[in-house]
């Protein structure tokens, strides 16, 4: 039996493998890593699993209901893991209805939107008339406020959109409005309860499990023995620097718990979440939030599965998250930073796992100045991108039984995902078009600094770059670029002058660089430490 867990999810997936062309690919990357899922949705899905109550069936102990973010149980001992999630449809309708794609608005939605507003109107009391307010104005202010937290899905209908996860009350699972079916059978229906069944909760189309895979990798990592972490740092991840504390999974679990609690509960006012709940429950007569479809466990999701071996990537991102959580920053900035980190992690999983599967060296990512006119450098960056795609493509080609599926599988579970996510945060540019190159945005630079150095920690620029190479395969200078050339089989050497100048300037302008001499600069995380 191969090492894929949780076992029940894996077996179910295996039993359906004839219909599931992704099955073999998932054995390398996890089930499933899907290109259509946006980065914010990956983060939201991950946070959704983290904060949910979990129903764990274990092989060794009694079944347990667990409220921990990361239960203390080895992944290989978990038979099945279900987590609960909410749809928060009333809050979504109230906040996002007016920015929903017109074509998908059903008469029942409009009718219920008015009902919600009217019910809310009954529960608002404006006590100070000196501010020229009335209930309608207050409702509009609230609607505008919550609409401002719209995270993803601008062109979707309101229920398919997600909020920015500024508090746990803003997290909701996937809901898809089956508009075509509803319009076919109930085109003029005004009663929301009659079109209830057209809200689909179990499709995994938007929340496609990439966040679950991330969760499982971290869960698996946090339950390894410290000696395994040390072995990893002396073996496959030699060169990656972890402090003594960071080598201890117990410490990482504690710090992750703290950081995630802060993110979900302490970084924005509690009452903002209370008001979100208030709106969501203002009409108790209509059942919309807890959708009950044909499946009894509609609000309980059976999590996906991962190859156990991928716990090592989980440990890397867990440490990186802990470092980010150590920085005192605003919730919106933190969400931004986590999105960047998740993309980097997903790219890393693709390249590292692929190279391991093929027994080849890890690919390198050549990052260059976005404004460079140097065609050699642009070529190198493009080649490094092509090389990453090639190595992923090789894995998928090898795993696809039917070669006619390779292209499609790549688009959905391989190279397509790599490219889409890298482009979504402008790590790979241009947004559209062919001549791709890796560059750094300021947001990405902040993320690299905070995921490498704790507040006030400093290292030489060389060491900083070395860590980025070990952790993500990133290279920035001639030496690294020539290594890229060797990997792709080119003998050419790059002798471009001052390839690092742009990065030095960027670090300097962001306040991270201290020049010590012509040749040595310090990179220092100047951020302020989060106090708990």
């Amino acid at each position, binding site marked *: 039996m191969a090492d894929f867990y949780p076992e029940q999810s894996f077996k179910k997936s295996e039993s359906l493998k004839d219909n599931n062309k992704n099955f073999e690919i998932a054995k390398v990357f996890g089930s499933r890593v899907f290109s259509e899922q946006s980065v914010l949705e990956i983060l939201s899905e991950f946070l959704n699993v983290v904060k949910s109550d979990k129903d764990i069936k274990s092989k060794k102990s009694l079944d347990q209901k667990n409220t921990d973010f990361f239960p203390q149980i080895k992944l290989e001992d978990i038979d099945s893991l279900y987590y609960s999630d909410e749809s928060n449809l009333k809050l979504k309708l109230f906040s996002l209805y007016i920015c929903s794609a017109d074509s998908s608005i059903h008469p029942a939605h409009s009718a219920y939107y008015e009902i919600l507003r009217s019910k809310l109107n009954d*529960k608002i009391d404006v006590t100070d008339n000196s501010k020229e307010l009335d209930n309608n104005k*207050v409702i509009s202010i609230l609607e505008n406020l919550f609409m*401002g937290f719209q995270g993803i899905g601008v062109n979707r209908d309101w229920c398919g959109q997600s909020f920015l996860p500024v508090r746990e009350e803003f997290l909701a699972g996937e809901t898809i409005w089956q508009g075509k079916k509803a319009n076919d059978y109930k085109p003029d229906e005004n009663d929301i309860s009659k079109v209830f069944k057209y809200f689909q909760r179990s499709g995994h189309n938007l929340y496609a499990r990439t966040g679950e895979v991330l969760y499982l990798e971290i869960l698996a990592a946090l339950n390894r023995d410290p000696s395994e972490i040390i072995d990893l740092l002396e073996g496959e991840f030699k060169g990656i620097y972890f402090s003594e504390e960071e080598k201890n999974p117990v410490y990482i679990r504690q710090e992750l718990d703290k950081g995630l609690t802060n993110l979900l509960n302490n970084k924005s006012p509690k009452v903002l979440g209370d*008001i979100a709940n208030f709106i969501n429950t203002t009409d108790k007569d209509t059942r919309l939030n807890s959708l009950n479809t044909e499946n009894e466990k509609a609000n309980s999701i059976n999590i996906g599965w991962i190859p156990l071996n991928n716990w090592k990537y989980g440990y890397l991102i867990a440490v990186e998250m802990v470092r980010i959580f150590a920085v*005192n920053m605003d919730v919106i900035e933190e969400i931004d930073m986590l999105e960047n980190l998740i993309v980097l992690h997903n790219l890393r999983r693709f390249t590292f796992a692929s190279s391991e599967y093929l027994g080849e060296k890890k690919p390198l990512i050549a990052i260059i100045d976005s404004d460079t006119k140097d065609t050699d450098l642009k070529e190198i960056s493009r080649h490094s991108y092509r090389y990453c795609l090639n190595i992923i493509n090789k894995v998928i080609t090898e795993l696809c039984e039917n070669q006619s599926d390779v292209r499609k599988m790549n688009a959905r579970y391989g190279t397509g995902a790599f490219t889409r996510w890298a482009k979504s945060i402008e790590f790979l540019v241009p947004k559209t078009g062919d001549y791709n190159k890796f560059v750094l945005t300021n947001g990405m630079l902040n993320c690299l600094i905070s995921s490498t150095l704790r507040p006030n920690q400093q290292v030489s620029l060389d*060491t900083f770059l070395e860590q980025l190479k070990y952790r993500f395969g990133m290279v920035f200078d001639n030496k690294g670029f020539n290594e890229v050339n060797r990997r792709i089989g080119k003998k050419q050497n790059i002798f471009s002058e001052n390839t690092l100048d742009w990065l030095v300037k960027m670090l300097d302008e962001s306040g991270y660089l201290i020049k010590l*001499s012509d*040749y*040595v600069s310090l990179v220092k995380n100047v951020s302020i430490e989060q106090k708990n």
Partner: protein
Amino acid sequence: MEKTATEFVKYLNTLHRCGGNNKNSTAESNHNQIFAHDILGPEDDLKEKIEYDLFHGDGKVLLTGFAGDGKTTLAQMLVEELTEGNSLNNPIEEFYIQKYNKTLVVIKDLSENRIQDNDEIVTRYLLNKQVSLLIVSNTGAVIYRMKEAYKLLKEPNKIAIENKILDGISTKNSDSYGTISLEDIKINVINLVKHDNIPTAKVILEKIVMHPAWDILDPSTDQYHPILLNIKALKQSYVRDRLFLMYQRLFEYDNRFTLRNFIEHFSYIITGNLKLEDKVNNPDDYLFYNNVFGSFESFDKKDIISNNITIIRNIRNQYFGTNISPTWKRAVWNKTDNTIYENIFEPFQPYFSYCRENGYSNGQNINRIKLYRLIYFLISPSCMNDVFLNSFLNSPGLSLWRKIQNNNNLTNTENIALFNNLRHTIKEYFAGLKLPANETGENKDKVYVTMSRRKNIRQSAQVVLGQFSWVNDTKVKIDVYKDFRGRNQFRLLRIKETSNKSFKSADFTNDDCISLLLPLPFLDFLLNANSGNLLDQNYQYFQKRLDFFKNEMIANQIDKELYERSNLLLVRLKPDRNLGDLNFELVDSNNNEKILEVH
């Protein structure tokens, strides 16, 4: 060779990069020139410190800094003194020092000295307690060598040893001294990058312009030669002070120059790459106030050769003199008023008249630029004022900053104006809303901190994370502190909500408040932001500083009340153009249901 003006000019022209002969720019060759000893001042304090550390202290000294900072010159002088005339010729040299009855080993330029087993040699000398060791090298090479030898130096790994070295080199003491403390070894560090070399540069310039050679002229020399005019002007101390004010402004903006950079610039300012024998048709192109900025090819096309000079390149990037205050412009171009003309240093008055005559035409004109430069350097101190200096050097906070350098207090009016300016900028940034210029109303003295916004968040009202009283001298004040270079800098102090003290409390300490340090570039940024000018290259960094300050204020609220309190505060711009807040509170109604109360 006789030390004449002609020879001196020839020598100066070998110190800059415009003549194709800058052979004396390195310490090694310059050391042998007869003029070098006249102008290069001994850095006695540094020499004494090194000597003490080598023979009385821990015996191991690292002398480091940028290329051109004067490491080699300093080491040469020290060895010459200690050994009565020896000089440094090889990468590694041993000297017996009779005065102390000890062996001195000098290792120079590790990076250029790639002997295979260098790491071991350096480590061996480091571990040898019997010898005094002076390492003269740039920092990179030292780190590289010591990292490679981390095991011999008994450090657990490369990053650990690197951290210790970096700590020693990047010391934030007010002098340039630090210490690298390894398991068995203590190395005293003198990092010339941290050493304030502007006072030394001042002495060097003074020595150059006051050199007796200027009085020994060939009979054929033109008395009105631009070089001689330049010397005449630079002999005036206020002219040199204005030059150094420009350097200081650059320095505060993180443009640090080595002594080699300064000497190169001085040489070019004086000679303009001319020789005394040269006949010049358009002398004003070679006058020092133009040379400071490099020579012209045309107004918009800068001379490429003088752009090689580091300081000129940096000065050009700052666009000094292109943004003169309207008041001064009016005064300069008013034909009936001769006050400015009369206050220009007399030998340069004809050039003033020429530039003014030819600068009247509309649009940008090269003579206008020259005229403003001439005024900056050559108008008498009695006629110069802060408005001109601030605008010429593109630094609205410069005059206030200079005031505190001389330990003068700001006047009450200056203090209030500065405070109001800063409050306005900070208030707008923290609230995420644009405010009218002269804000009035009940919330004038309140600062709201709202959630950060990304480009895709658009809300007419913002969630307030904290609100803070912002009244001058009660909860907030502008203060002066000494930075690590010992220079006075402004900072803004806000008493923590968790502290019950006031600024006047006897036991008030810095721990009772949160501070926003305001070094000159940041101060200028905040003052500029208030006038709508946010186009600064360091925008990212400054934003980040404000964010840090904001986050710290939020983190220091009483008992994290924000996150637990029962009401939600929103802030919005009201129709009367002032900030207003709205309170949302969930309360229990009569039938045990929640209702949302808004007030």
